[in-house]
């Protein structure tokens, strides 16, 4: 009859490696920032900056999002993942291709290693996309969160195809326009299409869940979905078909309104929350949402240019990417790691014993004090690095990079504390 499957949760062996690789990649990306030092103040298309960007967006952000998605899919789609074996193989190919890709940017191997690395990356992302789409096909649920996730995945596909084409164009030169023109499309498909849509989709489930807020206006999220996608399609048409910025202001406006609707939804969740005192995980989530306002403002500067000198515009472009990747996305992942990973490990270790024995709770798996230090370092680093880019200050770049590295180290200590947690049980009194 209407019997339903009970065990939709993925195996921990699928999820855990993604968090470990993600955390280590965050550390590596901040370490490379320290090494790149004042080159961060130069043009944004420098090999070193592109290497850091790709470790951050793929190795750190996308890797953790994949792990979190494998865990969340049973909740959003109400069905088990299509193939866990595919997910496991996918992890390794993805991890190796990110390392090779970033290395080839770092050492400027644009004509040699980059070609193989980008093909390998394309294959690994196609595997991921297939796995999620096949899972969605089995699902009987149709909700706005699922729609965000699926649409984001199509934007990821466009991003990686464009990226691969750009990589091959270095050797075979078939584009009509400058590389930077395609880089702009590649970056926006990735940052807005993949990350922003996916994050809105996931956080419209997670944020009310952790704030404990009920009966939110889902309409705002629905309108955000249409506006952001419309703006993105507008951007693609504008840049691909006309190769111009004819519709740029209009596209900026509707994407911004979409983002503001999402922020307004999150604000409702924040105001109505039953959980009054927030932990570090949720505080960093709030910071992340506030940081989302920065790139909207910087985009105006980049659109109008205001006769500003070229070097300043280069740094403003780096700042634009920095506030999205190391601001909005990183802060959200830092915060949500403390909310999701301890639960995943806790579930694995203690589900058999809950109710029968006295077990720790997920929050006991990491140090809240370390998490606070990690957050303070992080906030200081973001402020200092943003000022460094705006004011062209080499000393601030150095100081800011070291503080961000410190934040990444403390984060990794907590991450490994969670991952390596040993079962602790006591008898019920």
């Amino acid at each position, binding site marked *: *009859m*209407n019997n*339903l499957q009970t065990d939709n949760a993925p195996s921990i062996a699928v999820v855990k490696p993604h968090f470990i690789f993600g955390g280590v990649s965050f550390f590596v990306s901040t370490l490379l920032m320290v090494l790149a030092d004042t080159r961060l103040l130069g043009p944004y298309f420098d090999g070193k900056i592109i290497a850091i960007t790709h470790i951050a967006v793929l190795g750190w952000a996308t890797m953790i999002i994949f792990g979190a998605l494998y865990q969340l899919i049973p909740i959003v789609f109400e069905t088990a993942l299509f193939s866990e074996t595919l997910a496991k193989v996918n992890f390794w190919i993805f991890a190796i291709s990110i390392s090779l890709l970033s290395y080839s940017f770092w050492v400027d191997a644009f004509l040699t290693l980059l070609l193989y690395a980008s093909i390998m990356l394309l294959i690994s992302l196609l595997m991921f996309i297939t796995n999620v789409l096949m899972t969605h096909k089995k699902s009987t649920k149709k909700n706005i969160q699922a729609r965000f996730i699926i649409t984001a995945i199509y934007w990821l596909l466009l991003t990686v195809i464009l990226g691969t084409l750009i990589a091959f164009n270095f050797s075979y030169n078939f584009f009509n326009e400058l590389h930077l023109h395609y880089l702009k499309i590649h970056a926006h498909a990735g940052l807005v299409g993949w990350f922003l849509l996916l994050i809105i989709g996931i956080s419209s489930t997670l944020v009310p869940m952790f704030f404990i807020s009920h009966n939110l206006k889902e309409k705002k999220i629905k309108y955000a979905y249409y506006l952001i996608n419309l703006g993105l399609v507008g951007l693609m048409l504008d840049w691909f078909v006309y190769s111009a910025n004819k519709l740029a202001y209009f596209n900026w406006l509707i994407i911004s309104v979409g983002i503001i609707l999402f922020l307004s939804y999150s604000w409702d969740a924040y105001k109505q929350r039953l959980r009054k005192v927030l932990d570090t995980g949720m505080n960093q989530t709030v910071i992340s949402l506030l940081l989302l306002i920065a790139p909207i403002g910087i985009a105006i500067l980049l659109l109008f240019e205001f006769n500003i000198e070229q070097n300043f515009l280069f740094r403003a472009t780096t700042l634009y990417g920095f506030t999205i990747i190391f601001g909005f996305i990183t802060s959200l992942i830092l915060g949500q790691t403390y909310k999701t990973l301890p*639960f995943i490990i806790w579930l694995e270790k203690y589900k058999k014993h809950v109710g029968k024995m006295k077990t720790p709770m997920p929050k006991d798996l990491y140090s809240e004090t370390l998490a606070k230090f990690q957050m303070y370092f992080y906030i200081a680093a973001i402020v200092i690095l943003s000022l460094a880019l705006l004011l062209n200050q080499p000393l601030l770049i150095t100081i800011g990079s070291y503080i961000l590295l410190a934040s990444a180290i403390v984060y990794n200590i907590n991450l490994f504390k969670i991952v390596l947690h040993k079962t602790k049980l006591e008898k019920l009194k």
Partner: protein
Amino acid sequence: MQNTENNLVTLDVRPIIEGGNDPFNEIMAAIKVLNNNQTLEVINTFEPIPLINKLKGMGYTSNVERKNDVVHTYFKKELSDAVKEKKESIYKSDPVEFVKTLSSFGDKVKTIDVRHLEMPEPMVTILKEIETLDASTVLFVEHKKIPQFLLPELEERNYSIVAKEIDANHTQLLIFKA
């Protein structure tokens, strides 16, 4: 939804479409509770091609009949031997079954509300409750969503679950010794 003797479940989606809504969720809800001997009849003004493809992917065969301006589409589960032999699961989501189960316990009902609790407190609370629950009592839980991570654990401990979805943010669960 109408249920006639000859195992035909009829769902007329024209009023839903006229009301400006997408009937997808209603149709999926009907598919979910459809048993293997039943056929679902969807009445619409056009042939629902995307729906036919979607359900084909889920193992349903379809049949389309046109009567004047009205299109009747029939869906039936295609049965393989593996499906027929599959053992009955301990988890059902069905409003009718829910009412039946609840009334069979009479006044032996213990109610808890876990909607205000932070994850994983709902799961911990429920598992603690069933440890002290006697076999003739049913645990009635007010929950936000179907607790995906709790279900396998309840199965492991030999409990059955019947769920009733009230809306997207409210689900009621009955948990009792299998």
